[in-house]
């Protein structure tokens, strides 16, 4: 009896929840209204069945509950009823399946003139490649991947030379355009999902998968990885900016071609050394750092990391509100142009890396090692030397006090939360692997002990 009433309440409650729910599909930004249509049809059919069968169930539970003098009817089967129910069910299935298959047929066959964009996934970053003036993407393969060629473009292929390559988590697309995404992975399975586009597809190492969509609304949308790809899977984020074609063309023109990235002149270490004189006041003549001036050790950091951080300070991504130490650095970076930043970074990276003196005394280094190897080593490597591949800086032997300081900044979203910090948010969340201040110090001390 109570159960019959509860079932009715659950049915009604589910319907109310359905219509009252603020959690619903995002506003669509691609021409896949047909997918939404199939979802609507499925809702109507399944919704009808849900209501009808459950109400009938509740009715039976109520009506045929045990009562004095009541006896069950002996009715083993009723072929007519069973056959007609099968037929009705089959009709319902066809109603949902038929439009589904039609829409799938359009999904599997992209238009011939769709704009090809290559989307590359790696642990836990995105890269992108656009065809150059020739309109053709050059061949690519895992064997060509290295620090200077993170896309794996075949350097021998003439078609690839003019390809526009992006080594970063943001892609742009022209609006009102059929886009075919060619999906590649460099390591494990990944997945390209933009909820507003409605479509997704896995990226599989060893093959090129695809999806397509017609962009319909300008805007900036999150790219999510939706195939588990390791410990930082939840932080493999990107961004797609859909914009009018003219804006897109202008953006594209600013991006380097593959050939350009391969022929960049080496930075001048000598020029960097000269420029470094200004830095030495705080960071020390050998970039060994000076805690009294809140200046961390820099020697040992990779040049690409230094370049990025200097650019962040220069553009206000770092050193903003609440980051008092960073605020001291920001004006220093303001005066540097791109070349100066490259030269300076190259010089600092060339300095001998002598481990900074430890300042944390009572830490549990074993606990630090445990936390580090479980959560951090995937990007920063077992020995703490970091790698360009995961955009992870060198940590071993660096200033422990600065590490503590920065982890706390990440945890308080002082660092890493800026919209243009395309790599920092990963650390905001990975930093939670250290449960409290003691654990942060344990990891800091462990890293400082690494040689």
């Amino acid at each position, binding site marked *: 009896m109570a159960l019959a009433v509860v*079932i009715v309440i659950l049915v009604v409650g589910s319907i109310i*929840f359905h219509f009252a729910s*603020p959690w*619903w*599909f*995002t506003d669509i930004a691609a021409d896949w209204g047909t*997918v939404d249509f199939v*979802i609507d049809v499925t809702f109507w059919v*399944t919704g009808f069945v849900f209501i009808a069968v*459950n109400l009938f*169930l509740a009715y039976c539970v109520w009506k*045929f*509950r*045990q*009562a004095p003098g009541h*006896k*069950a*009817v*002996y009715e083993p089967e009723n072929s007519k009823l*069973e056959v007609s129910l099968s037929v009705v069910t089959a009709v319902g299935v066809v109603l949902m*399946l038929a439009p*589904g*298959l039609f829409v*799938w*047929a359009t*999904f599997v066959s992209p238009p011939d003139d769709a704009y090809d964009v290559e989307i590359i996934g790696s*642990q836990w970053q995105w890269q992108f490649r656009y065809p150059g003036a020739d309109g053709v993407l050059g061949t690519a393969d*895992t*064997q060509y991947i290295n620090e200077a060629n993170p896309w794996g473009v075949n350097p021998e292929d003439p078609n690839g030379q003019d390809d526009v390559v992006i080594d970063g988590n943001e892609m742009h697309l022209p609006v009102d355009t059929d886009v075919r995404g060619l999906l590649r992975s460099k*390591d*494990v*399975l990944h997945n390209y*999902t933009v909820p507003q586009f409605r479509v*997704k*597809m896995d990226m*599989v*190492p*060893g093959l090129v*998968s695809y999806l397509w969509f017609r962009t319909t609304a300008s805007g900036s*949308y999150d790219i*999510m990885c*939706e195939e*588990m790809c*390791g*410990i930082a*899977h939840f932080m493999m*984020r990107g961004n797609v900016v859909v914009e009018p074609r003219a804006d897109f063309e202008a953006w594209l023109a600013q991006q380097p071609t593959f050939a350009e990235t391969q022929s960049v002149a080496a930075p001048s270490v000598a020029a960097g050394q000269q420029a470094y004189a200004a830095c030495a006041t705080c960071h020390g003549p050998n970039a060994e750092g000076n805690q009294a001036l809140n200046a961390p050790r820099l020697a040992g950091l990779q040049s690409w990391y230094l370049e990025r951080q200097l650019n962040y300070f220069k553009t206000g991504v770092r050193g903003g509100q609440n980051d008092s130490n960073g605020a001291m650095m920001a004006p220093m970076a303001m005066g540097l142009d791109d070349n100066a930043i490259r030269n300076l970074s190259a010089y600092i990276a060339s300095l001998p890396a002598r481990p900074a003196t430890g300042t944390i005394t009572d830490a549990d280094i074993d606990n630090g090692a445990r*936390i580090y*190897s*479980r*959560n951090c*080593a*995937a990007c920063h*490597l077992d020995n703490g030397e970091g790698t*360009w*591949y*995961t955009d992870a800086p060198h940590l071993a032997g660096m200033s422990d006090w600065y590490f503590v300081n920065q982890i706390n900044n990440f945890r308080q979203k002082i660092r890493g939360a800026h919209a243009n910090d395309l790599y920092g948010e990963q650390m905001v*969340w990975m930093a*939670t692997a250290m*449960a409290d201040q003691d654990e942060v110090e344990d990891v800091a001390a462990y890293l400082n002990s690494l040689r």
Partner: protein
Amino acid sequence: MAYVPLADQEQELHHPHSWVTKYVFSQDHKVIAIQYGSTAVAVGVVALVLSLLMRLQLGFPETFSLIDPSSYYQAVTMHGMIMVVYLLTALFLGGFGNYLIPLMVGARDMVFPFLNMLSYWVYLVSVIILMASFFAPGGPTGAGWTLYPPQTSMAGTPGHDWGIILMLASLAVFIVAFTMGGLNYVTTVLQARCRGLTMMRLPLSVWGIFTATVLGLFAFPALFVAAIMMAFDTLLHTSFFMPAIIEAGQPLDTAGGSPILFQHLFWFFGHPEVYIVALPVFGLVSDIISTHARKNIFGYRMMVWAIIAIGGLSFIVWAHHMYVSGMNPYFGFFFATTTLIIAVPTALKVYNWVLTLWEGDIRMNVPMFFAIGFIFTFIHGGLTGLFLGNVVIDLPLSDTYFVIAHFHMVMGVSPVLVFFAAVYHWFPLMSGKMYNETIAKWHFWLTFLGAYAIYLPMHYLGFLGVPRRYYALGSTDFIPESAQALNANITIAALIVGAAQLLFLFNIIWSLKNGKKAEHNPWGSASLEWQTPDVPPVHGNWGPKLPSVYRWAYDYSVPGAHQDFIPQSTPEADEPTVDEQHFDPDHDQSKADI
């Protein structure tokens, strides 16, 4: 096939002589069943605790974050694998299969009792290996329960060295155990049925367990070879599933393998696995509904054919787990069609359960609460499957919380409700005691309503596009703050449901000792397992003489009978039989002159 003369001969049963051979290394199917069931429940409790740790992380990431990203993925993986394989498969086949098959077919034991004992101990070894991974360097694997390569053995995945090897070893050992048990169940059903018990007189429980076991014997080998191949890839650096890839900036020495091949092998096992769990559940719940509704199961023959049809179809739908895997997308047409076809026999089963209630005389005993709760959750979970099966809808919903909600409704909550229904239903037989009804009803309401409060809203996070397997949502432009509030509510509901299971454990353990003595056949069940001379049945089950069967298992409320059920073992001479006519649809049985 139906009649096995040997079964009637005096048999030399291997009677136990000591406490150890009676309760530990027992060859009695009933003891083995309870060993299987208790081990499965114990390991299930571990998985439940893991899920609550995950829920705390998701619901209260700032305050109750008890686990780091690494442990989160390990919890995801171990929760899934334990629940699907080590709990549900072991529970329904090793547990209920073992207990019920010999009793329901009127046999003294499984046909290979020693092998049966071995099956349990090998299963226990697989569980120990699995649990050992919690203590191994690096901990258990965190690759997700689907264990998709290449990440399983790569540095970015927790437990990529020891954890994954222990997982693969444990699975291989589990499959050995399953095969020993499975061959036993199938052979016993085919060969050891008592006199008069034709296949079409078997209770649906036996049909469900039997068919599920056949599925398992075909499906598990696919997982077995996949596990062996992956172990080769990991230990010997072969390239079955490994293309040329980069690990942390360095190229690995692998080439030419296919990660998608693993997914095919995995899901060729994985989808039938859904039905390896579901078919026994269908069977058990059919018998429970029929007994407590005092009415025959409606459309028995259709129910049997539906079980067989679902079992057969379950082998040609596997790639619906892979619509967006990067496999040739043209496969989508075939697998969407087969997947939606499977909805027809499944829907018929639901109709027939409800039609069994129709014009019944429903006793709202505790098992019936759980059984009706199951019908509700199964309808819900089945219908959401139509979204995911219909290939295009998988584009937005795949790998979101909609998937989590769907399979927990259909494969988590639903089977578990039937597990509880079945424990409460057969507890008087297994223990000779009654459980405490008040606690059992509290257990039902908290579990049923709590589970719905967890999973209904979760579907809507999926519509929104919240991805599964995320340690933290981070900042996005499409997930509103309210989603976090919803997550917190879901976590609270999960904690309540988790705590409610303590009521169950307490009730069972307390009632074993203090429960009221159960009367013989308290539900008035017609099927054979309740007709043993002793309750609980002793070793050998039937005393000196095996039973004979004269009718199907569903003679409830037969017109003209002395009581509202006729045990299967009652001869035609003593009670009316409608066996000859009851398959005639146009014959109005209620008015039949019998």
